[in-house]
């Protein structure tokens, strides 16, 4: 008995040793910083002036009356909605097309997926080159006889540009997830509907769409959460401008911290961002449970 217990304890020790790196790492680089960011958010802290004073909830009160934050949240909402709608619609269209066993499907799938492996900054640089007033996009439009706008210099077109660049970068990933879901739709159901005289659109709407809707929900939430973390694209493409039209929440946070040295206020913004992501992620897990249940 005593020896067995010793063996079990030795096994436990192996377990603790194996998980020690991530557990200690999580404490040092996730839990501790989260605690610190909450603590900082209760302080007025200017690095340049070297002041660090406890101000309680002042930073949070400031949020309520900060027009810059209001604009940033609005930009975030526009960006997220635009991204999710365009991304999901395009991903679904591409997945459906690739699921038709057309000639060249493998090659097209490679094309659509390839931007996913391209460095984000590299991809954004190429697009910022294409989106210049005299860049490739407008050159192409002028060949067609149309006059393109100076994309990155007008608030609306700049936001559209940021969304489009991000969509083409990552839509391939969602396309793959949808393709997997589409291939899980039973062939017999489609066949039965065809026997009943349902057209392709009708079959898509009444059979395919309901069956893959859990995946659509899951992918939408993932895409929204991902859209909140958009940073490099904004920094390279627009720098948050023109004006502050593309300054989304994370970019606003970055500016407050590393441009204006307002570390206390930036920390309060970080807490806000964390809460938003937390809620959305819990929703995602909830929907994943339903997804799994759905398949059983």
């Amino acid at each position, binding site marked *: 008995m005593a020896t067995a217990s010793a063996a079990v304890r030795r096994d436990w020790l192996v377990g603790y040793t194996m*998980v020690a790196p991530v557990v200690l790492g999580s404490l040092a680089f996730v839990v501790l910083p989260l605690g610190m960011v909450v603590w900082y958010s209760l302080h007025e802290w200017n690095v340049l002036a070297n002041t660090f004073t406890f101000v309680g909830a002042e930073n949070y009160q400031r949020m309520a009356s900060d027009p810059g934050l209001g604009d940033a949240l609005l930009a975030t909402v526009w960006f997220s909605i635009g991204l999710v709608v365009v991304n999901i619609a395009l991903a679904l269209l591409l997945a459906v097309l690739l699921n038709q066993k057309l000639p060249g499907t493998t090659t097209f799938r490679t*094309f659509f997926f390839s931007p996913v492996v391209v460095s984000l900054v590299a991809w954004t640089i190429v697009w910022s080159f294409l989106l210049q007033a*005299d860049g490739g996009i407008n050159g192409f439009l002028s060949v067609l006889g149309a006059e393109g706008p100076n994309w990155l210099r007008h608030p609306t077109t700049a936001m559209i540009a940021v969304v489009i660049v991000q969509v083409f970068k990552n839509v391939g990933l969602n396309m793959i997830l949808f393709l997997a879901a589409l291939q899980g739709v039973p062939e017999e159901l489609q066949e039965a509907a065809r026997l009943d005289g349902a057209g392709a659109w009708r079959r898509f709407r009444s059979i395919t769409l309901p069956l893959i809707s859990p995946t659509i929900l899951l992918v939408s939430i993932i895409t929204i959460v991902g859209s909140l973390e958009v940073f490099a694209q904004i920094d390279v493409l627009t720098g948050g401008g023109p004006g502050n039209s593309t300054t989304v929440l994370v970019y606003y946070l*970055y500016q407050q911290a590393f441009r204006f040295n307002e570390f206390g206020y930036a920390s309060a913004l970080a807490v806000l961002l964390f809460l938003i992501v937390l809620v959305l992620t819990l929703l995602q897990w909830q929907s994943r449970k339903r997804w799994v249940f759905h398949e059983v």
Partner: protein
Amino acid sequence: MKSDVMPAPAPGRPGPSAPAVPPGDTRDAAPGPARRPPLGVRARRGLTRWLLVLLLAVLSLPFVFPTWWMATSSLKPMSEILRRVPTIWPQDPSLEAYGRVFTLQPFAQQYWNSLYIAVLVTLGTMLVAAMAGYAFARIRFPGANALFVLVLVGLLVPSEVTIVPLFRIVNSLGLINTHWPLIVIPVLGAPAVLAVFIMRQFFLGLPTELEEAGRIDGLGRWGVFWRIALPLSRSALGAVAIFTFLKSWNLYLEPIVYLSSKENFTLPQALTQYVDAYGGPMWNVQLAATTLTVLPVLAVFLLAQKQFVQGLAHSGLKG
């Protein structure tokens, strides 16, 4: 946009391109196994399919064209780049921009920085995640669940949330403008959590018979892990390796926060630095540097496409 792929025409509503159907034909939507669809329907089906292929080809332009444009423009002189109507192929290709990539910045050094950091992060993450994933899946030690939940918190934290305190921590350790934070934090911190999760899921789905056989043969826990479980987990480790490498290779926020001197920069950060005295981008040089960054990864992707797609689909599920 969604056209009929397998058209099933309703009676009394003949399609525009199916005039050859005799009136006596019932035009049943369900052709029997022995009956071929009427000629008109077959022709239309073929036409629809080719239209769909055409649609796919048009849709693939914004995915493929930027890479093409990047590579060809890097061979053009500035005068040709700024031409109003773009040239598809450089009229007078030159490698001049590639030379300037290396003279304007220590680009070779920056390339090496990105490469060695990404390799170390990838190897470190594979090891750490395999160990933790195995222990969380197989060993029933007290507190395992609580510790796993603690680790999972990392999945909820975008890097922007903790960047300020991490900057303070790194600063107080005197490690600003070194590569340490770019190596140690991803291996042990939030970015590694997804890898731990994927490895744990993999080991949970792995039958235990082989490991039990190993134990009977006298292997201890470590022996079973190293000699049996780890070799069996190659596919999951491959997925982890691919998305970890790409994440590190593409990291942008952390380098611009932690690094300040050009010889320490990593590639994504270095790419943005090719600007002239007025802050305007030197397009051909910038695109040449970008091409050098992108093409090797694209080449590896084309060689190991299946692994890339699977590996990244895993990471995509986290978002």
